[in-house]
């Protein structure tokens, strides 16, 4: 069953994902977007300022351009829109709020529904020197389950652009949202994602963020409120930083629900540029547990390059159990030599070690994501610009 949104402004008609031009399809596939739509329950593509495609293919799943959804459902604006991310949070959210015609996706998974395959959303920039603003809302009703893959990229050759993205996630009782976001930006792109997630009792939020090609500047501090009893959040952030880039990723989690739990894992490989790994866990309920772990591998600091790890804990309740760890190191030469002694070249050995570092203790990655990680390892190992 397929639903194609018909309410469209300024764009004549939405196309099917298969009609995306091959060079763009190739870029999209590098950030986890399957243009053929195979193994996907829904597809949304935003090209620059207009949606190209919004297609939900499963019962219980609703996928619409956000403007259409706001028109269709009055309750969306009243109960959800700008509730998890305040419009006046900073200049970037204010800029999004000022858009007369918001772009972005609305995804709703109805009570008890589970999408058989991930839903994919691609935010794609084809022109240089533009500002793309996006506002997404994802609602999972009680017992619903969704894996949302968000792939963000610039068309090959586009160096410079700005991407402002507001994402609001509402996770109902015992619902589970896995959001895997893969970024592959041009070298001079600036990216300011602003995301807020509210999790009710028994709900689970898993956030995987992978930055494949470093933009000039990424600054992101997703916030999650674990409001219900037993709610949980797990963030994994995998960053490749290279010369000229500044990547600042964090994650605030407010553990307000009894026995709620949060885990933040940061992994960064630096071949130049500045990397900040942050995270603030706020324990505010009996029995809540939280752990933040930052690990960095500094291959080549380059000029003014560094990794700075700032894992943060704030306990407001005496029964909150909270811990953090952080480590930064280089590749151990004896590990490289060891693998070389088995016949690997130095580069093969370094790539394998970086891949192992990025993979360590991180569970639940699909083979596709593993391939992304392998790609980062490859890039870092070969010192590509």
């Amino acid at each position, binding site marked *: 069953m397929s639903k194609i949104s018909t309410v469209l402004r300024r764009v004549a008609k939405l196309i099917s994902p298969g009609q995306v031009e091959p060079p763009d399809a190739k870029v999209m596939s590098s950030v986890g977007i399957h243009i053929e739509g195979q193994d996907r329950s829904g597809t949304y593509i935003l090209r620059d300022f207009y949606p190209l495609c919004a297609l939900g293919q499963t019962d219980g799943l609703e996928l619409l351009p956000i403007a259409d959804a706001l028109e269709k459902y009055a309750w969306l604006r009243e109960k959800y829109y700008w509730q998890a991310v305040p419009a006046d949070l900073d200049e970037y959210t204010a800029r999004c709020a000022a858009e007369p015609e918001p772009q972005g996706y609305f995804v709703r998974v109805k009570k008890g529904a589970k999408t058989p395959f991930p839903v994919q959303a691609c935010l794609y920039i084809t022109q240089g020197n533009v500002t793309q603003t996006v506002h997404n809302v994802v609602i999972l009703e009680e017992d619903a389950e969704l894996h949302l893959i968000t792939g963000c990229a610039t068309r090959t050759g586009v160096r410079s652009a700005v991407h402002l993205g507001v994402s609001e996630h509402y996770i109902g009782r015992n619902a589970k949202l896995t959001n895997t976001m893969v970024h592959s930006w041009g070298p001079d792109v600036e990216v300011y994602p602003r995301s807020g997630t509210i999790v009710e009792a028994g709900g689970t939020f898993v956030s995987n963020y992978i930055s494949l090609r470093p933009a000039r500047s990424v600054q992101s501090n997703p916030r999650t409120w674990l409001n219900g009893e037993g709610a949980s959040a797990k963030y994994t952030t995998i960053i490749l930083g290279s010369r000229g880039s500044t990547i600042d990723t964090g994650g605030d989690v407010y553990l307000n629900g009894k026995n709620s739990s949060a885990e933040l894992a940061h992994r960064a490989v630096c071949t130049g540029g500045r990397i900040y790994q942050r995270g603030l866990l706020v324990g505010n309920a009996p029995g809540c547990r939280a752990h933040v772990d930052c690990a960095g591998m500094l291959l080549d600091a380059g000029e003014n390059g560094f990794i700075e790890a700032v894992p943060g804990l704030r306990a407001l309740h005496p029964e909150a159990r909270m811990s953090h760890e952080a480590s930064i190191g280089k590749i151990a030469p004896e590990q490289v*030599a*060891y693998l070389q*002694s*088995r016949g690997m070249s130095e580069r093969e050995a370094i790539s394998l070690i970086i891949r192992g*570092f990025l993979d360590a203790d991180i569970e639940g990655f699909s083979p596709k994501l593993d391939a992304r990680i392998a790609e980062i390892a490859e890039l870092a190992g070969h010192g590509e610009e």
Partner: protein
Amino acid sequence: MEESMTNILEIKDLCVEVEGKEILRDLDLIIPEGEVHALLGPNGSGKTTLMMTIIGYPGYEIIGGQILFNGEDIAALDITERARLGIGVSQQRPPTIAGVKLRQVLDFVIANAPQRAQEIDELAQAFQMESFLERDVNAGLSGGEIKRSELFQLLITRPRFVMMDEPDSGVDLEAMSVIGHMTNELLARNHATRPKERRTGLIITHTGNILDYVHADRAHVMIEGCIGCSGNPHILLDQIRKQGYEECVRCELRRRRE
């Protein structure tokens, strides 16, 4: 018919420094193809340094002399090139590599020789290594398990010349018999084989325990950075077990004075 023997390894007047300190001094050693030699000697005499220098680990600087492998001077080659020439090592304390599974090392070998996939699977089964494959390389292994993992990788990579650093240290008796079996398999000494069909090896051992399981053709005693004496492994080991390495050191010092 006379077997024409070539020397796999020929070391002449080798001097090696580690962190500016001379560890090996005018060392000579020849290992003909198909022979297994034991390298005995007290702790700190330079046995491991010799092995690391031959495989080409960084930090082991050759300041004099030559290492010929199959007649070729290998000083300018890096570890990878030496490994691909057919030099293999089993380390005494190999590094652990977080996140890198032993399976990935096997996958690398198979990627370069796809026809060997089945054989490698069978080797993993035969040596009960399957449970190690999904673990990080060397992580959380006992002394005996590390030796088995190292020997297993050599069985997979099949180097022409094998060096083993203390395969018998920190190993209980039961594991020792497994390691002995694996070593004989590796060196092709389990069955009646002619010398040319055997693999060439150098086994470093402080205690000599491995020699109760693996027959060596010749033994060398290393004293203070050079080979003090060479000869029949059983005779040398017998003397060492009776009199200790102290006697070897005294003997070497006498020799140097003369």
